[in-house]
């Protein structure tokens, strides 16, 4: 079985990708593209139960466990946010609950997306990460 790269390896890869962008336009076009390409979330998960509170747009995240690893899928009605969902899924999906809980996610600062972490009513990245880590904690407790 192929071993999947660690969270920190994926973070490094993203930092590498973003370092090639010279302008903010390129960076956001990339995120928008990620958003457009994100695999669709089954409509049955687009309910309040799966909705992340604290976002100006609607964000839904579903998680499930397979062979001791947690997988995420999600969607948003705003395409940049959907790109951020895609990025977070790429980083966190397919790892053990403990790895997800421990992930420092320093790449967000390094690639200049930390403005999306601001504690305002409009930015949901922080809420998104919190929910994904909570889901991982729940799977860990279930053991």
């Amino acid at each position, binding site marked *: 079985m192929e071993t999947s790269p660690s969270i920190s390896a994926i973070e490094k890869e993203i930092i590498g990708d973003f370092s090639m962008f010279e302008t903010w336009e390129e960076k956001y076009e990339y995120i928008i593209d990620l958003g457009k390409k994100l695999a669709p979330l089954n409509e049955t998960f687009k309910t309040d139960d799966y909705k992340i509170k604290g976002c*100006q747009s609607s964000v839904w995240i579903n998680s499930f466990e397979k062979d001791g690893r947690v997988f995420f899928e999600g969607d948003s*009605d*705003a395409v940049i*946010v959907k790109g951020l969902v895609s990025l977070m899924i790429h980083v966190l999906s397919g790892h053990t609950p403990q790895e997800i809980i421990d992930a420092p996610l320093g790449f967000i600062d390094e690639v200049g997306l930390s403005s999306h972490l601001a504690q305002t009513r409009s930015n949901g990245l922080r809420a998104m990460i919190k929910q994904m880590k909570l889901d991982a904690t729940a799977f860990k407790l279930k053991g």
Partner: protein
Amino acid sequence: MASTLPYDVQSIRSEFPILQRKVKGKSLVYFDNAATAQKPKQVIDAITHYYSHYNANIHRGLHTLADEATAAFEASRAAVQAFIGAKQHEEIIFTKGTTESINLVSNAWGNVFLEAGDEIIISSLEHHANIVPWQMIAERKGAVIRVIPIDADGRLDMEAYKKMLSSKTKMVSVVHASNALGVINPIEQIIQLAHQHGALALVDGAQSAVHLDIDVQSLDCDFFVFSGHKTYGPTGVGILYGKRHILESMQPYQGGGEMIKEVSFEKSTYNELPFKFEAGTPNIADVIALQFGIDFISRIGKAAIRQHEAELLAYASSKLRLVEGLKIRGDVEEKVSVVSFTIEGVHPQDLAILLDNQGIAVRTGHHCAQPLMNCLGVVGTTRASFAAYNTIEEIDILIEALNKSLKMLK
């Protein structure tokens, strides 16, 4: 005295230090004035001057600093009185904002006068600050909230309002100009009809006070509330105007210093207006600075600013209408300088992020008016709101940035 000179927007801009700022490497274009206006140097200096020269607690001390601070504080009360045409300065109560002003009325008036089955009328255009305080008191008292519906452009259904009024109506609390759409309501008529049915009328002037000529005596409203920070003044200062006899019939809102006459452990008697409603040490520095925000408006002239803003609004609206799939929400004649819009297939949050990267500040989302967004059937809008210092060139920058953003999102 209002100036008769031609409108010199560059000279006005030079009074606002923040307008020199760069955002993301670009000159700031600030179109979020309906959320809060920027502050002229006079206002900023007044705060520094107070703390540097005469910081003291007011209304109590018998020393020079306290006298100066008290005089400056009361000068702001006089400035507000003149600004809205109140009969007496005792009718002007300082609060921390429009929200607190409404909460003060809903509590201090509602506790005394509301009974089970009484009705409070608000409108579909209200900001949460003019919904939730009434819901809270209605729940405690068993009163009922009724909501005036709107048409697709955000105009109030006045026929529905007339039918809603009855002897059960005790309070009509309606926004003068919608924060989310800019639509101006026929407030005189709303107040008159309320009075015909023996109800009181509260006007939420948060968006109107800075733009429209306000004369609370000719409006005949029982309460008028607004915030200092939207009138080029500091944050943390709000105004509650109330007719004297009504304010006198109300309970105090909070207990503490300043609002008392005599205190014993058995019973306290309350101070006279306006101090009865100003418990504790107020926000002295910001209240003092408020008069300089008002002074800025008077110096340029409300009518001159209004004309300038109307030109900006007309220009922006005409340019926005050319954008494919764009719909202006609240596209009516009678508006303050707010243009709120949606674009088919585009989420307002995406737009805000891309505009911010181009140095443009607009507001997106539900504008603290979720019930209104539900009425309009949208998740939110993008709102550009204009002030005395904005320019036609800035609108061109917005339109260019908007088109660029849409291209990126397509």
